[in-house]
């Protein structure tokens, strides 16, 4: 395998890959860590074409080789989007703590969602008098608890970390794109 002087393997792709990314109930930190591959992004763009992603204006998901899911499931729309990604992406990857086990948003699982909504929108410090919980049909229904994505669809790979480091994401892409089974060695496999 070819490696550059700094030890990072170079991308080797037999063809151009289509990739879609989405953040469900996450914080966007995994997308930021993805962009932390810095100038290697330009190298990636030579072998990867983006489909639906927060980085593009493509709003409807097409057939893709790789789908990256950041975040868990906290409401009804998350579930729809996740199922769409599973149906359209050959390889589906759970990226980061929230997609893998619900992450910090799942701290609300011990609480009653109705009570949280009442507290935040009706009785919180500094709120106007007589405020009501938002209830417009345009707003997605919150789920009772936050769920990891593997509880709803089959997931091909799990990339742990909060967020996974840019080097871990880069190593993963290299293996996947070259057709190898992805393997995170010592130092890249972490959960913090």
């Amino acid at each position, binding site marked *: 395998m070819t490696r550059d002087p700094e030890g990072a393997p170079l991308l080797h792709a037999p063809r151009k890959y289509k990739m879609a990314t989405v953040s469900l109930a*996450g914080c966007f*930190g995994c997308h930021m860590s993805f*962009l932390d591959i810095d100038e290697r992004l330009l190298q990636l763009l030579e072998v990867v074409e983006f489909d639906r992603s927060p980085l593009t204006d493509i*709003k409807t998901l097409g057939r893709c080789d790789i789908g990256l899911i950041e975040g868990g499931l906290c409401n009804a729309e998350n579930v729809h989007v996740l199922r769409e990604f599973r149906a359209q992406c050959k390889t589906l990857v759970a990226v980061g703590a929230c997609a893998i086990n619900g992450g910090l*948003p799942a701290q609300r699982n011990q609480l009653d969602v109705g009570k949280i909504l009442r*507290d935040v929108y009706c009785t919180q410090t500094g709120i106007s008098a007589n405020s009501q919980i938002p209830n417009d049909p345009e707003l997605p229904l919150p789920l009772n608890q936050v769920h990891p994505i593997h509880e709803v669809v089959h997931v091909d790979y799990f990339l742990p970390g909060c*967020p996974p480091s840019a080097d871990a994401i880069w190593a993963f892409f290299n293996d996947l794109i070259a057709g190898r089974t992805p393997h995170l060695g010592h130092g890249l496999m972490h959960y913090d």
Partner: protein
Amino acid sequence: MSFALETAPHPENLRRVAIDPVSRVEGHGKVTLLLDEHNHVQQARLHIVEFRGFEKFIEGRPYWEVPVMVQRLCGICPVSHHLAASKAFDRVIGAIPVPASALAVRRLMHYGQMLQSHALHFFHLSSPDLLFGFDSEVARRNIVGVAQAHPEIARKGIFLRKFGQEVIRITAGKRVHGTGAVPGGVNKLVTAEERDSLKRELPHMMSWAQDAVDMAKQLHAQNPVLYKRFGSFRSNLLSLVRPDGAMDFYDGVLRARDADGKILFDGVSDQHYLERIEEEVRSWSYMKFPHLRSLGREQGWYRVGPLARVQNCDFIPTPRAESERQAFVAWGRGELVHASLAYHWARMIEMLHAVEVIAELLDDPVLLSGDLVSTGARQRSGVGVIEAPRGTLIHDYDVGDDDLVTRCNLIVSTTHNNQAMNEAVRAVARDYLDGHKLTEGLLNHIEVAIRAYDPCLSCATHALGQMPLDIALVGPDGTLIDRVFRSQGEFVHDVRGAGGSGA
């Protein structure tokens, strides 16, 4: 009672058009338009579809855990939440002031954050609209298109962001969700090697940040009518300023101006924010609508972020950015600039200022040695306010004698701009879309207006197609995990089974 175009008087026979999700913003939202048979816009709303409940599940946690927890509110500006919470808990443990060396490390971290976030927003997210045109081809309208057409601009953006992220890594331990600040100070200082590695990059960063200001300025000069009129409306402004009126992102007093530039209040301690700001809830968005109590909901809403900060301060305390601020003020010809697109120019002035402040801090020996934390008389509550990349960020906590948080109130930067972003959407809907057949390019005009505010709506969701009124969450093996439906405005959960009574 209501704002123009917020609520259609008779929504029943109108056609709904949605922009869903709003893309190339950090986080998620959607826009809905209601149009009559002649394509006249009757209603336009930016919905924030997120609900996380952070304020509630932080209650009951030990206070020293919170600066690390709250970073997960947002992966784009985790440092802002990290530091706002740390500042609030400085008060709780009586660490006022924190040691000079800890303050320098925190300031370095924060200005690094300002640099990376502004670079990301301008180059990676917004530059395609500004370089190619608002209705340019959708396939090209992204950072990939910029990298192909203007490789030098894309490279500068990537390296400016990288430098800011490296400043964060060195001060916080990690680029995203670090752990550098603790209540009372920091847990590490900067080594001489780390400082030198950053100093080596400075000359490039200074010149590229200056190039970015020049680019924003040129865009205004080349198309003054568009840049003055697009999504323009009058509003009040709010930000922290240093007590002497200088721009400061880390600390200061609250100052507000009205749309003519007259000062509404000044020198207000951040500890007293609640006396000035009230939040309103509207049924159609999970994001609240704040306003100044003194002016009420219709007159009291305001803008925060770069456009507010550059015009709210009396001066910027670094030479290059101050000279650019003066050029910006001159563009307004004696009046406040209220154009949404001017956010981009103001943001790049702030990015240049951030590089200058980083350069000053790296020359300060206090960064390398000194005390890490201080302490004092324990208090029951604390407020931490900071100027995050997107505007004023407020963290407010009560802590019990057992060190557990008993109350938490957060007003995040983007929330302050909620009414303003809705006004921008409506201004563009009125000026560009009304009466026209809607095209993808026209709809992108709405997103261009939202993007100018650099909203951070993280941890939200996207919708594809129609909203269901009843949903079952079923695992791969067919077991029912959760079921939720809407009944007379109430959320009802039922996990007993899809065949249950339903109500």
